[in-house]
Structure formats: structure tokens, C-alpha cells
């Protein structure tokens, strides 16, 4: 419960900063983003839907570096009437990002050193049938909650050349998932993500390949899985003069292989459930609204498998983000 209080205070601080930041001008450049996610699961014996909202704030000091902070809330709902699954999981995640840019003369572009940190808590809510009489007589039900805490650290070093034709990064993430139900083991996850990005067509197109190499500690929450390997490919296209539908850019993302408990630094997202991602595809479009705002819409599909129950399912989602900078 103490963690929940800290999360709430952190969320209030992020909102407060977001409201106060326009007053803090000068050499700091501020940005904020509001996002929403809705996801529906098909073919699952347990999962029903997921919805989430988030708020983030960024502050960059000229081009020397910056900080970011954010808060995400997600609620995952399970099918009703199940004996072996909770009713829902409410998740609170806060994240912070600190990065600095350095410009070594021998390199034809800046190096960025970045450290992301995440901390969160899952409230697992289960409906318990009691033998005590309910309001209408007979047995009653009540909601019982237990809390699992988790955190992750994610340092990344990246390089982008001045011509915007080559990007390289190497990321490492260490994540820890704790359980307080007395049954499920804690879990440690180590992830390496080498990335290559190539720009072409006079910087109107960008292709990015990222490998996910993930090693997991022994835990009864993931069965026999000890490691996963996946490759993510993204293609971005930016529009020039007279864009169709007023679009600023579009992207297509594909994921192959297997990915479990991944940390996605681009999206500031933790995939923190014991479900093995076995494929994903997403299509996104971004519009510029006025001079300083953007709207991003993403539709996606992913395939997954619950390791402890061999429940194979897929999910389809819609994600929207409205961002503003000043």
C-alpha cells in the first residue's frame, strides 16, 4: 500500500509539472503527451480486454540533454466466471528518463547516453466466494487484492549521424518482478537490444531493425522458458509537400520470434505479464495539428501464449497519443 501511495504522489507531481511547465521558459523546451489504449483479446480462455491511459512530460535543455517523466495506468479484465484467474489487474507504472547528448569531433554525429527507470505495481483483484451470508442470504462474495511490485532499469547508448542516414544503439535492461502471494517466484530479466536504423530517400524513409535478446531467471511463473529471441522491424515514411490526408508520417512495425517480459524504450512500455509474444504487427499514422501539436493513431495486432496454461490468443488494439511541445 505504501508503494501505491508513492505512485499516486508521483502521478500528482507529473500532472503538476505538466500544468506548471509553460511558465518555465528560457532554454528549456517542454513537451507533454496524453495517451489512451484499448485492446480486445480473442481466442483466450482467460483474457477479455485491456484499457489504459497515460501522461508524460519531457524537458530538454537546448540540445544538450533532457529528462522525461510519465505515468501509465492500465486495467486488464479477465473473462467472468473463471475459477483459476483473477477478475482484473490494475497496473500503475511510473517512469523517468535522463539523457545527455555529446558531440565528439571524430564522430559524424552525436552520441546519446540515456538511462530509463520504471517502477510499478500490479493490483491483482480476485472475486472470493465466502461461506458467510451475503445481503440476500446464502453465501457472499468479496474482492480480494494482492500487490506485486516491479521495477526496471534501461541504459541505452545511441548514435545518429548528422545526415540522418545511420542510427546505432545498444540497450540493456534489467527488470525485477516480485510477488507477494507466497506461491509465485520472483523473476529477474536481462535484455540486450542492439539496433540498426537506416535513412534513405533523402531522409523521407527510415528502416529500423532491433533484436531482443532476453534471458530470464528460473521462476514458476514462466514454466521452462529461460530465454527468448525476437527481431522487430519498423519502416517510417515522412511526407513532404502536399501530404495525403494531411499526414505527417506513417509507420509499419513487425515483430517475429519470441519475446517475453520485454522493455520497449521507444514506447516507454514494459510487457510485464507471463505471456510469450510470438508475433506482432502495427500500423501507425501521425498528423501535425497546428504548429506545435501532433496526433498519433496506431492500430495493432499481436499473438501470444500464456506459458503456464498454454492459452494461445491474439489481441487487437487501438492506441492514440496527443502530444504538444512549446
Amino acid at each position, binding site marked *: 500500500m505504501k508503494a501505491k501511495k508513492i505512485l499516486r504522489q508521483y502521478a500528482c507531481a507529473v500532472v503538476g509539472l505538466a500544468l506548471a511547465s509553460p511558465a518555465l521558459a528560457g*532554454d528549456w523546451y517542454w513537451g507533454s503527451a496524453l495517451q489512451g489504449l484499448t485492446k480486445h483479446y480473442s481466442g483466450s480462455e482467460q483474457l477479455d480486454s485491456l484499457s489504459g491511459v497515460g501522461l508524460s512530460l519531457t524537458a530538454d535543455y*537546448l540540445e*544538450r540533454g533532457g529528462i522525461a517523466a510519465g505515468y501509465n495506468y492500465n486495467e486488464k479484465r479477465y473473462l467472468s466466471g473463471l475459477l483459476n484467474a483473477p477478475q482484473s489487474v490494475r497496473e500503475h507504472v511510473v517512469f523517468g528518463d535522463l539523457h545527455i547528448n555529446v*558531440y565528439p569531433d571524430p564522430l559524424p554525429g552525436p552520441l546519446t547516453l540515456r538511462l530509463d527507470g520504471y517502477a510499478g505495481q500490479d493490483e491483482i483483484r480476485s472475486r472470493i466466494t465466502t461461506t458467510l451470508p451475503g445481503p440476500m442470504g446464502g453465501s457472499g462474495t468479496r474482492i480480494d487484492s494482492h500487490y506485486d511490485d516491479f521495477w526496471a532499469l534501461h541504459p541505452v547508448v545511441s548514435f545518429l549521424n548528422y545526415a540522418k542516414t545511420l542510427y546505432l544503439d545498444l540497450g540493456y535492461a534489467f527488470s525485477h518482478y516480485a510477488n507477494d502471494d507466497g506461491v509465485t517466484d520472483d523473476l529477474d530479466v536481462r535484455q540486450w537490444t542492439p539496433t540498426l536504423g537506416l535513412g534513405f530517400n533523402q531522409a523521407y524513409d527510415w528502416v529500423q531493425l532491433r533484436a531482443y535478446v532476453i534471458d530470464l531467471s528460473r521462476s514458476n511463473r514462466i514454466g521452462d522458458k529461460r530465454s527468448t529471441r525476437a527481431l522487430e522491424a519498423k519502416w517510417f515514411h515522412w511526407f513532404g509537400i*502536399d501530404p495525403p490526408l494531411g499526414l505527417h508520417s506513417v509507420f509499419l512495425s513487425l515483430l517475429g520470434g519470441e519475446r517475453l517480459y520485454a522493455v520497449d524504450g521507444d514506447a516507454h512500455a514494459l510487457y510485464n505479464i507471463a505471456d510469450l509474444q510470438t508475433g506482432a504487427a502495427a500500423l501507425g499514422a501521425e498528423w501535425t495539428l497546428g*504548429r506545435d501539436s501532433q496526433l498519433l493513431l496506431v492500430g495493432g495486432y499481436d499473438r501470444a501464449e500464456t506459458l503456464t496454461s498454454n492459452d494461445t490468443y491474439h489481441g487487437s488494439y487501438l492506441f492514440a497519443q496527443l502530444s504538444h511541445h512549446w
Partner: protein
Amino acid sequence: MRKSLFRLFILGAGLLITSSAWAASPWAESYRLEALAQYQPAIDVLEPLIRQEPRNDFAMLRRGWLHYLKGEYNQAIKDYQTALEINPKSLDARLGLTLPLLAQQRWREATAHADRVLQTAPWNYYAHLRKMVAEEGEKQWQALAKHAAAVAERYPSDANALVYLARANLWLGHKDAAGKAYRKVLERIPDHVEALQFLASGG
């Protein structure tokens, strides 16, 4: 008469000695080496002047410029900052700083220095030019269009502001305005490649 000729001889000899002394000065040698693109030797000959007390802000400006030409942008930034410490009123040092910053695509930082110059000298041409480069780098097309139009109004013989005005209008989808600006560029520089290409493409 003889006395006057003697005086003229003394004056001529003095001038010759002085000019040959200047021709052999570190400054002259540094300029000569720069013209030959020998930037490090051009820096090296200035070192005794840079070590002198009181510190010479012009020597620091000169070394910053040579480091910039050499592609040593971080050292150029340090030199221009030192020149600014020696002479905090130096607009040259602030304008100098914008060069390596723009080379490193640090658009906001370059803009911050250009803005400081414009606080003192509101229509300083180079400050506006460097700021327009940064606006283009950040793809701030509306701001660039407005800014370039204002600069072109004040410097009517200049083609650079008109080129930025044309580019910004092109990105904003204002092809007629872009064509008008490119035609004005050709009045000033008849063989301007970019303007000719735009008009040849039917713009």
C-alpha cells in the same frame, strides 16, 4: 632640397621596415597559411599571441575560426566562449559560436546565441542568417517564412533570405509564393541553381 630628399628617404625606409615587419608577423603568417588551407600551422603561429597577458580576445576569435574550418567544433566552441569571457560585449564571439553549433546541428543553442546578438543589434544580418539556418534545420516553416520575409524586406539586395523564403513557402504548400521568391533570387543571382531547377520543374 637636399634636406627634403633626405627626409623622404628616411620616411620611405621607415615604411618599408614597418611593412616588412608586419608581413612577417604571426597574424600575416596565420592568414597566409589559412589561405593555403593549412589550418593547424595557422593556429600554431598564433599560440604566442594567445598566451600573452592581458588575454587577446581577437586571437581567441581567430583560433576559434580556424578550429571551425578544421572541423574541430568542440575546440572552436571553447575558443569562442573564451573570447566571450574576455570581452562579454563581443557580438563577433556570439556570432562565431553559432557556426560550430550549427555544424553540430544544435539548432536551439545556435538560435539562443543569435537571439542574444539581436537583443543588442536587432537587424544584424549574420544573426538573422544563422537563425534562419536553424529554423530550416528544425523545420519551422511558418516561423522561417515570416522571418525570411522580414529579412528580405530589410536587405533587398540579398538573395539568401529570398532562398529561405522560397523553401519555407514550398514546404507550406504555397507554390506561387515560392515561385515569386525564386524569381527574385534569379534577379540577384541569374545562375542560382536551386531557383533555376524549381522554375524549370514548372514551379
